[in-house]
């Protein structure tokens, strides 16, 4: 399992558009991706669940990646977060 932490800098937080893009991104991997904030977790391939976490600007989220392609997925996801959130 790989994991990294990320502080959200998008002013509106994890809103519909980046959340939608994240779901698309995650679905490319075999690995299971989980996002956690304050003890609440969500499968990152589920848009409404992600949005219902209400992740806001300045929140710190933990991203967990586990599966066959976890190394590649974790690296690419970290880049994705930096570029989009």
């Amino acid at each position, binding site marked *: 399992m790989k994991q990294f932490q990320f502080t959200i800098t998008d002013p509106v937080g994890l809103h*519909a558009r980046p959340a939608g893009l994240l779901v698309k991104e995650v679905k490319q991997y075999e690995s299971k991706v989980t996002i956690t904030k304050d003890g609440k977790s969500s499968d990152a391939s589920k848009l409404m669940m992600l949005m219902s976490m209400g992740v806001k600007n300045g929140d710190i989220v933990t991203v967990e990646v586990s599966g066959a392609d976890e190394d590649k997925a974790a690296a690419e996801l970290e880049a994705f977060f930096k570029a989009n959130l």
Partner: protein
Amino acid sequence: MDTYTGKSIFNGIAIGRILFYKKGEQAVTRIKVQDVEAEVARYKEARQSALKQLRQLYDKAIEEVGEVNAMIFEIHQMMLEDEDYNDSIYNIIRNDGVNAEFAVATTGDNFSRMFAEMEDEYFKARAADVKDISERIVNVLVGATSGKDLTEPVILVADDLAPSETVQLDKSKLLAFVTLHGSANSHTAILARTMNIPALIGIAIDESWNGKMAVVDGKHGKLIIDPEYSVLEQYMEEQKKEKEARALLAELKGLPDMTKDGKEIKLYANIGSVADVANVLANDANGIGLFRSEFLYLEKNTYPTEDEQFMAYKTVAQNMAGKKVIIRTLDIGADKQVDYFDMEQEENPAMGYRAIRICLDRTDIFKTQLRALYRASAFGNIAIMFPMIISLSEVQEVKRICEEVKNELDENSISYGNVELGIMIETPAAAMISDILAKEVDFFSIGTNDLTQYTLAIDRQNPKLDNIYDAYHPAVMRMIQIVIDNGHKEGCWVGICGELGADLSLTETFINMGIDELSVSPTFILPIRKIIREL
């Protein structure tokens, strides 16, 4: 004749018959089904059609209202493909053995409640999106056409309209719309403005109006049912004028604000609220030269939060899509009072505790606004302008605080754009030391209303002095010339955002004096463009 008043979200006049629109909201009944897998397949097929509709809507919206506004339909597609949403529908069909319509409606209610209960305004508002997508599928399932097919031009009266319904309506047949619900900042309101459709919200609608003649007066937020002939005549006259203005627009839209010998003028608009942006776009201004931020403070009972301000600035910046948006920091005091600021009564408020004087004294309020402005600058081309400057030290202090705010944002890895800083020149003091001030800032914007009142020592609010108030006083004109020349020496561009800027008889004079920018109320943009292009 009955008159109703609501909130106008787009100015303009419409005259026509009312069509009372009842939502495609289907009364969904729970029906037991035998073959649940067939029902699941029926749902999947309906979802495919709904997705196809959304793709078409997205394309239509991109063309009509631009990518930023169209994005909502892309998000709806993503929501329709959400796993949990779909799983919930499959489960209800399979476990309860019920029809797809019922499963979709129940799931839609559950998910929309989940969002409605969230704290954050942005996420709360997504409840409407979940409802909208669920209704879309139900409509496909029952074979209803979502959206109303309009056969003749009508004023549409409805409880509420979803963004998708608004875009789907045939624009050539839609004269105006009037709804009970909805907010001025909703997607529907923004779409109405971008489509130039007069619209009112917050009117207690009545089904018995169906088929009656009516007038929608967007300027005054009025709906008049069964207007008397004299009233109708008056509105027809106004509508004619509106049409003439639109013809001017058609002729001048998209053309550069350039004189015959090739000098380009920045022709910008003055606005006082987020909603005014529609008017700016409709009149084809090339930017916003004065966005008065007071509305954020005046419409509230307490200080607006950083996030509230940020959302307002960001919305304007995004809607202007890269065009310059100059936002003036808080300018209260004098004739604009806000209760919760708890300010003392003053003998002479025009020369009192106001504008930048308050901001530099109560830096907490000032920094909140600056943080919101800088954060919003990541989403467009924002410039900040400071009012009521009289000295170099004020400008230096303002710049120091801006640096402080930027450093704090850097520490929190919050991005911001490249923000031009400028000052209002509205005191004789600032005009006379404009050579010094020009070294400090990127631009000057001359506020002719205050500059004239302070230069002539004439209170604008005193009607007894109207006969000696001379807007063209040579002292003011000379001061404007000094400011332009001093600005240019240091590479500052110089504009006028006061009422004088919209005086068509002065446009040529100002251009000859070397002015770079004129910022005027949106309705003056095209008449001035016409003059500029003929010089």
